[in-house]
């Protein structure tokens, strides 16, 4: 039952196996190729896919920073040995705006409100134009990602510096940083969701939409962390974690699967109940033309399957089950974003090579990020004053 001593986890910087690194570059190349071809052949459809990719990576990045901040501000002990994995994943945040560059060049294809003549002819859009206009939109996008990246860099620098200096004050500094970051994150994540997903249908509004995206965001970040932690542990990169650590990750996954379902149903229930035409048509678009099967599939994939797969106590501690469900949930989050975005592109259900190709880009980017981070930084925050207690954590 005794936890490994600190001295046994001294080997620090690791390297992903060559095969994995090659696979990562292949994914990235394949994804980039698909993206270029897609923009060449059908720029509009490609741009919609690009939004899904962008929101997915923003989920992983923003969600990871959120998890790190929550862990600091809550004084979490159990997660200290695996915190660096989440911090690695948060490193995607400064890269995400790059993915959005082709989108910014094709805003007219996806955002109806970017057409001045359409806005002028439409009193609703005209009323919203002080917020929904291209220059303010781009400004918000840049400001949000600048903020997130800045916070991320501060968090990460304090954390990695502690590896050498073992200065406890760096933890205090990160706790303060987290206290500032969390309210900022609440607002900026909502704005991101409203800007990039809700404004695809600029007449429609749902006040819970930001929370809906947030539930998926945190779920995706927890799933990515879980998958990488289990994988790293198999490779021996991380010190021996107890079943209690895995159980905590599994419980978080389970909790956020339920949270997502709760929020998704709340959004649906209120709109269904009020039955106002200006709100219900958004759901109607997802309940016809083949999308209705996809909507049901989303409930099964995003809620029912992970719910039953993670319900049992043993399932939450089983590394193989966790790995499978983490990947499953990441795919489910992709489907969720697909469900949010694509009905705006086509009234009938569409799925093709573009939709298959784009996720490879996300996978490749994250794998390369991990490989880079592993080589440069310690995979365990060895200087964290709570590390030993974290390793000894038992439920």
């Amino acid at each position, binding site marked *: *039952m005794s936890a490994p001593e600190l001295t046994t986890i001294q080997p620090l910087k690791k390297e992903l196996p060559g095969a994995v690194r090659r696979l990562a570059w292949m994914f990235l190349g394949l994804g980039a190729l698909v993206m270029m071809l897609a923009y060449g052949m059908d720029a509009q459809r490609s741009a919609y896919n690009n939004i899904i990719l962008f929101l997915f990576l923003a989920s992983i990045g923003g969600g990871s920073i959120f998890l790190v901040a929550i862990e600091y501000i809550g004084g979490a002990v159990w997660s200290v040995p695996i915190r660096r994995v989440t911090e690695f994943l948060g490193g995607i945040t400064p890269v995400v705006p790059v993915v959005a560059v082709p989108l910014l060049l094709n805003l007219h294809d996806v955002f109806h409100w970017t057409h001045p003549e359409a806005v002028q002819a439409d009193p609703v859009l005209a009323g919203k134009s002080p917020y929904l206009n291209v220059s303010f939109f781009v400004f918000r996008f840049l400001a949000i990602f600048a903020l997130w990246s800045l916070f991320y860099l501060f968090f990460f620098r304090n954390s990695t510096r502690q590896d050498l200096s073992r200065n406890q004050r760096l933890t205090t500094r990160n706790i303060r940083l987290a206290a500032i970051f969390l309210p900022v994150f609440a607002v900026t994540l909502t704005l991101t969701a409203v800007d990039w997903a809700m404004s695809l249908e600029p007449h429609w509004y749902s006040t819970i939409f930001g929370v809906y995206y947030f539930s998926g965001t945190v779920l995706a970040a927890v799933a990515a962390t879980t998958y990488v932690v289990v994988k790293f542990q198999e490779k021996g990169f991380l010190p021996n974690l107890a079943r*209690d650590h895995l159980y905590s990750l599994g419980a978080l996954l389970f909790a956020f699967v339920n949270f997502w379902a709760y929020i998704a149903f709340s959004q649906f*229930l209120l709109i269904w109940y009020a039955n106002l035409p200006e709100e219900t048509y958004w759901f109607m678009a997802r309940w016809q033309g083949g999308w209705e099967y996809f909507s049901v599939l989303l409930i099964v994939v995003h809620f029912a399957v992970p719910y039953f797969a993670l319900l049992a106590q043993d399932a939450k501690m089983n590394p193989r089950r966790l790995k499978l469900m983490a990947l499953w949930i990441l795919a489910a989050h992709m489907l969720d974003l697909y469900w949010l975005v694509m009905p705006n592109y086509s009234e009938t259900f569409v799925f093709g090579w573009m939709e298959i190709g784009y996720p490879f880009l996300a996978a490749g980017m994250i794998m390369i990020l991990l490989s880079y981070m592993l080589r440069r930084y310690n995979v365990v925050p060895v200087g964290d004053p709570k590390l030993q207690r974290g390793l000894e954590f038992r439920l």
Partner: protein
Amino acid sequence: MKRQDTPYGITALFESPDQIIHAAEEVVRKGFTRFDVNTPYPVHGMDGAMKLKPSRVGFFALAFGLLGAISSVGFMTWVTLVDYPLVIGGKPCWSWPAFVPVAFEITVLLASVLSVLSMIVVYFKFPNVSHPLHDTDYMKRVSSDRFGICIQADDPHFDEAQVRQLLKGVGGEEIRPVFFEEEEPAGAPKLFDPRFLGVLLLTAVATAGITYFSFNVVLYWEPFSWMSEQARLNAQEPSSLFPNGVGMRPPVKGTVARGFVPYAFAGRPEDAGKYLRNPLLPTEDVVQRGRKRYLTFCSPCHGNFGQGNSRLQGQFPNPPTLHSDKVRDWPDGNVYHVITEGQNVMPGYGSQISREDRWAIIHYIRVLQRAHNAKESDLK
């Protein structure tokens, strides 16, 4: 009073959670099955050390949860489909999304409350609250800062000397026997004990009584009276304040209702035709308004197009057509007079249709008349 003959079991105290886990493992290795561990807080890993089977409370929770889900959905289905079908908000009677929050809450409520209750009854043998370990020094210590183990005497491997030796061997201190209570031998469930049932009944009656009293009496005390008692008179109430005993007062003589203008030509249709002029212009809005009022108030007798062919024909003195030469040649004031005062069996509508609406109706009647007797130029 404790009996001092056969002991219930032998207890031992330990100082740390690691020691107690080690002790439990050793006790299991020696083949003991009837023993228990008492700790001041839940020690994790203990169920593994004691080789306990997975708890069966989960199955209780599942059963009660299903009971809650099925009964709540079933009840709502029965209410909305069988007992009192009611269309709400234009939705189907059986609107399952509305059931989800209720079914969820009932499921969680029954699953948690009933499984705790059944755990207390099945495992703790409630209402039998006595246990030989109660009120012992051992229990006092394990409730504060020690970890204890108790090997029961009814274990097939039990032998007092050997047990003492075993517990000493794993580091136990204060190894002592525990005896049964003198008057209450533990074990027998007392769920149907008359005393228990009596208390249960008393509790039920008291709860029901207090609930009834609270909702029907206390709620109407000051200051919770919900403002239902006020120092004012409701309409139609008597009052001793006024000499005639009637609470409602007639308005002061000469009072005129806001916006009321008396009709100047009561009983003088010729003068009405001569002096009254339609104050409204026949704009589209006015005609539409007139149409709406006409369809509401006039069409039941005069028919939708003023032909006097409503469904009342034959059941009632036939209402005249509005397309007769007489009505067509009438000035607006005459029509206004008839609407206001009535004519023959037609009652006056002055109190039901506002002045402006009456004039709007007249415009609409003119539109109908023109449509029925269109001029050549209208058809071009």
